[in-house]
Each structure stands twice: as structure tokens, then as C-alpha cells.
């Protein structure tokens, strides 16, 4: 998906939304939209973190359990 933003972009967006909501008196409907967007971004970022944390956990389990053959393969591919 082309619009799949990175975590950092999402965080930046979330920050902007927080600032917008904080600073300017947005019309209610717009504020709702922004809020909705913010919640979605927050969720998205949170999930992304979960995902990454899970990945980290798996990596660490692998470390203790399984054997990894070629550490540089991934880099060269």
C-alpha cells in the first residue's frame, strides 16, 4: 500500500494533530475528524510498536533457541 506511512511519519502526523487541536479553535466537525485521525494514528503507532516489540522478542527467542547460519546474507540480498 502506497500510503502506508512509516512509524516516524505517523508520529509526526500525530504530533501535528495534537498541536492543531491544542492551538487553534477548529470547527467541531473538523476537530472530530482530526481527533479521529489522531486516534487512528495513535492506534497505528501503538500497533507498530507492538509489532516491533514482538519481532524483538522473537529475535531474542531465536537467539537462545535456534541456530542462525548466515548473518550477512540478509544484508547482501
Amino acid at each position, binding site marked *: 500500500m502506497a500510503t502506508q506511512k512509516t512509524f516516524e511519519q505517523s508520529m509526526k502526523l500525530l504530533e501535528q494533530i495534537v498541536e492543531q487541536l491544542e492551538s487553534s479553535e477548529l470547527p467541531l466537525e473538523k476537530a472530530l475528524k482530526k481527533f479521529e485521525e489522531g*486516534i487512528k494514528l495513535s492506534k497505528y503507532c501503538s500497533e507498530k510498536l507492538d509489532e516491533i516489540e514482538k519481532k524483538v522478542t522473537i529475535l531474542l527467542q531465536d537467539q537462545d533457541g535456534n541456530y542462525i547460519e548466515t548473518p550477512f546474507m540478509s544484508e547482501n540480498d
Partner: protein
Amino acid sequence: MQKKIYTVSQLTKDIKQLLEDSFPIIWISGEISNFSMPASGHYYFTLKDSQAQISSVMFRGQNQHLKFTPEHGMGVTGLGRISVYEPRGTYQIIFEYLEPKGIGSLQIAFEQLKKRLSDEGLFDDAYKKTMPCLPGKITVITSPSGAVIHDIINISKRRFANAHIEIIPVKVQGKGAEKEIVSGIKLLNTRADSDVAILARGGGSLEDLQAFNSEDVARAVFASRIPIISAIGHETDYTISDFVADLRSPTPSAAVELVLPVKTDVKQTIAEYYKKLILLITGQIESHRICIKNMTNQLTDPKKRIDHLRFKSDDFYQRLSRIFFKTLEQSRERHMWRTNELKLKNPGMQIKNYNNEIKRYNEILVNSLKSLMYTKKSGLCVLNGKLNVLSPTAILDRGYSITRTVPDSIIVKDAKNVSSGQDLEILVSKGLINCQVKGNPQNGNPKDL
């Protein structure tokens, strides 16, 4: 023949060339006087004997390697070259090497070989190979007997228990040692399965270490593609091999330390990296989490606004209803008031007035008629009375009567006027008598009667 005239510079230049070409490098011996060592670290002194003296210098780069420090009055033998310093028109010997007077030819040969190989560049750092940080296999080229190999094995075990050590046994002194060392090094490179080699021997005299000062060994070391550490003799002993080797170790045991890491240290380093990696990534995740949480908390804004707006909207609603009901109430009051007014203005009063009027008119009508009737009645009554008084029949009461013909009602005043049988009526006071004439009435005067 024309006279050749030199300039000072030309002459000095020619002298410089002459001197420096004639004495490129020479051994010279004499006695040191006026020795000084300024901050630069170079040695300045005069070399003299009973008849002559020459200015001398030994630069820091060279004097570092000296195993002794020169002093005033010391007899020395040195290797140097003549150098002319043109600006001052002086010459001096620049020493490469110095040793106390009375050293043997072995030493001289050593120095000469060292000098040669050095000039060839065999000692250059550029050729020095780097040591592996974790050698899979270490080859030790040494004598399989003796303390050296045991020290090496023991230290290796201590540092890296599972180290792979291979020994290429060679003679390290005496006849044939040189050859064996050279072929050992060649064997090392032929097999080419080691990561590093240690060329080792215990301490000994210059003669004992002779094999390691040989040119063949030096060249074999230089030629090796596998890095070689030299570990020959004691800390103070230098051999040619030491200079050629990729690394010089002061002692054989120290060579192991140079080439083999302590396994637990490496393990610890890796573990530290590992820990740091986890710490860093989890730290980053955690800080992002906190950041998200903070931002998300800051997001819960609209509810407050909704509450506020609800208040506002409710207020409008209530005001609206209140005002409108007030308007409605006022309209009702206005309407009620008007209606009452209308009712008060109803035609009832008018009707009442008219009724009264009619009543009055009726009374007048009746009264007027009544009084008229009364007048008429009383008038009639008076006339009746008068009429009664004037009645001609009044005299009848005194006994008179009136006789009238019937039906003509002619009063009979003369009897002649009546005939027999004629019907007459006689009016008396009370009543009327009907009668018939019986005989012929007589004429006469009533007075006759």
C-alpha cells in the same frame, strides 16, 4: 691555460660532493668529548684521537636504538657518513650506529645486515600484516622440546581454552637451524591453514640467536603470507627476525597474549553489545510508547468542548422556549383583555335602555288612553244625568200620562184625532199601556176634564 675561479658556493658544493661520495658510509672509532643532548633529543659530540677531531651528530631516530648512552671520554666505534653543511662550510659525521669500543665482528655483521635489509625496506611498516583478532589456528615454529613451547601451550589454554595450536618443529640453534626455520616458514605457507604463526625461541647469547639474525630467515619471514610474530630471546634481545616480523614480542609467552584474546573477555564484550542492543531497542520502543501515550492523552479534547457546546445549545433552547411562551402568554393576555372589553361593550345596556323606554312608552300609552276614557266617560255621565233630569216623562210621576198613536207615536192631544178601534199606547210613570179606542172620542178642551 686559463685560471679557474670558483665561487664559494661552487667550491663548497664540489667539496660536499667529493666528501660525501668518497665516504658514503664508514666505520670509525675514536673518543667522545663535548657530548651534549639538547631538548631535540639528538646527540652532539666531538670524536677525536690524539691528533685530530671531527664534529659528530646522531639524530634521535637512530640514537633511540642504542643499547647504551655515550659519555665524555668514552671510546666508541660507529657507523656513519660524512655530511657537509654548506651555509657554514663545515663537515661532520652523521652516525647511524654507535657501540662501545671493542665489539666483535658478529655484531658488525648483524648491523650491516640489518642496515641492508632496512634499506631494502624489509622493516617498513607498510609490509607489516595485521594480526587476526581471533585466530582459528596458531602455528608455533619452534623447538618441540624445551620450556618455550610449554609456556606457549599453557598460556594459550589459559586465555582461550579451545585454541588450536600447531607446532612446526625446528632446530632453533646450531648448524641447520637456519634451514629448518626457513623450510618451516615455507611449510606454514604451503599448508596455509593457520591464521598466525609465532616464531619462538628462548633467550641466549648473540651466537645462540644467530639463526634468527640470518638473512635467509629474515627473507623467509618477510615472504610469509601468514602473519608472523617473532618471540625470540629476552626482552632486551633484538634479532633481525624481530625487525622483519609483522610483530615483535618481547617474550614467547607475551606472543600468545598478542595473538590470542582472552575468550571470556571476548564473550563479555559480545554479551555487552548484546545487552546494549536490547537495552537500546527496548528503550527506544518504550520512549515511543510514552510519547504516544502522552500525545494520545492530549488528544482527548473534543469531549470537553462537546459538553460546553451542549450547555450552550441547551441554554439557547431554554431561552427560546421561555421567550416564545412569554410571547404566547402576552398574546393570550392581550386577547383576553380585548375579549373582555368586547363583552363589556355588548349591546346589553342598549337593550336595557330600550326596554325601559318601551316600558315607559307603554305606561304613557295606557295612561293616556285611560285618562281619555275617563274624560269621555265622565262627560257622558254628566250628559246622562242632565238628560234624565230633562226627561219629559218626569211629569208622569205626578200621575200624568201620555197617549200616543201606534205606530206613529203621535201624541194624542185631541180626541178627535183618534178613531174608534185605533191602537194607542199610554205612557205612564211606570211602564207602557197598550190599548184600543172604544168609542168616538169627544172634542173637548183638556180643561174639560
